[in-house]
């Protein structure tokens, strides 16, 4: 069970709290985690990854165990602390005023 923390607007779209859980087979990667998130919450399709490029949307960032993984390739395996649920996977919206 992987824990995922969503930004406010995605919580509203998915009708969830701030943290959700998704099941994932190992070896889990960034891509398979987002696949599982979208399968469980179809309303999030296209909101984390762009439909056209299939890449992370530029104003979102991924954090893993205190490290910024936003620029890591989507094929990178997730560490045990994430796959075992010890630490949540963070999806964070870039901070901006207005």
């Amino acid at each position: 069970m992987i824990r995922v923390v969503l930004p406010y607007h995605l919580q509203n779209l998915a009708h969830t709290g701030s943290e959700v859980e998704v099941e994932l087979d190992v070896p889990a990667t960034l891509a398979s985690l987002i696949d599982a998130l979208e399968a469980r919450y179809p309303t999030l399709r296209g909101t984390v990854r762009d439909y056209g490029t299939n890449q992370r949307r530029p104003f979102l960032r991924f954090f893993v165990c205190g490290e910024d993984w936003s620029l890591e390739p989507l094929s990178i395996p997730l560490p045990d602390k994430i796959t075992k649920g010890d630490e949540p996977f963070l999806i964070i919206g870039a901070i901006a005023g207005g």
Partner: protein
Amino acid sequence: MSGVRVLVGTHKGAFTLTSDGKRKDWKVDGPFFGGWEVYHMKGSPVDPNRLYASQNTSWFGQIIQRSDDGGKTWFQPGTKPGEPTKTAEGMPVTESNKFQYDTSPKTGKPLTTHQWYDGTQHPWEFKRVWHLEPSLNDPNTIYAGVEDAAMFRTTDGGQSWHELAGLRGHGTGPQWTPGAGGLGLHTILLDRKNTKRMFIAISSAGAFRTDDAGSTWKPINQGLRSEYIPDPKAEIGHCVHRIALHPSKPDTLFMQKHWDVMRTDDAGESWHEISGNLPSDFGFVVDVHAHEPNTVYVIPIKSDSEHFPPEGKLRVYRSKSGGNEWEPLTKGLPQKDCFVNILRDAMSVDSLDKCGIYFGTTGGQVYVSPDGGDNWNAIVNNLPAVLSVEVQTLQ
């Protein structure tokens, strides 16, 4: 009893404003989709309870919302509350937010780039839906004008969208250049008399027409003159801000261009200027009285550099002669220290016996005139910046 429902899209959510036929007392509902930009909302002409909304942020992209109960509840098409949201295999049952350009060799040609601000070619990139135009006879068919400019259509109530690639592919697409606000397809007009004819407008490519329901398109910009482009009389490249027509006279179109208010009486084959005595012929909105096809409304803005009313006076201008002779309408509108803007999709008219005129401002006001423009009142004063205003006349 008759009444009206005003659909207001703002920079931070959507609102509905409802009233009876007197249009004096109003009920305000919202915000819906709080915190998101709602570029446009519109109801189906054949089912007024069927509404569509374009919800967007740069963070999370494009969401299409639909209501089947007049705006009380909303859902993403295909994910209606209480219905399964995914297949047995765990895949989503809908792709209502998926707007992908047609790049197939057969129909997409492929159309991979358009002209960028500096004259170089730039990839076509979907950003948002600017305008939703429901079909005149089918509540499940809607046309969407998007940025970067293209036209999409759904025939399943918004569950899936497909590009009408003949527009980008008619020949001038690679020359289209974005305006300051982006390369947006912002106006879609449907012809009630000729159901295969549609008009669209793009900033800053110009106006285009199809006579075969969207398969093929042609530019209709002859007569436009734009001093801010290398060839002022070019076939394309004009920053058309808005076009409007009266349903009974669909060959007559009125246009608010970047500068100049224009008119055509031959479905866009040739345009002539009707700015006449306007204090400024720069502006964004233009609309036509519901019962008087020759009565036109615009709201002059000072200039392309200063997007607010001349002299700080918010004035709607009305021409009862189809242009050239304009009268200011000021009763109930601020006549000093007013520096708001009125964006291109933020004016609309109802079709009650006494035609109501509506517009919204970047200062968060929505104004109504229940008597064709003679008298104005603010329905609301403090919404987020208004991006769009549509009115439904309810019987």
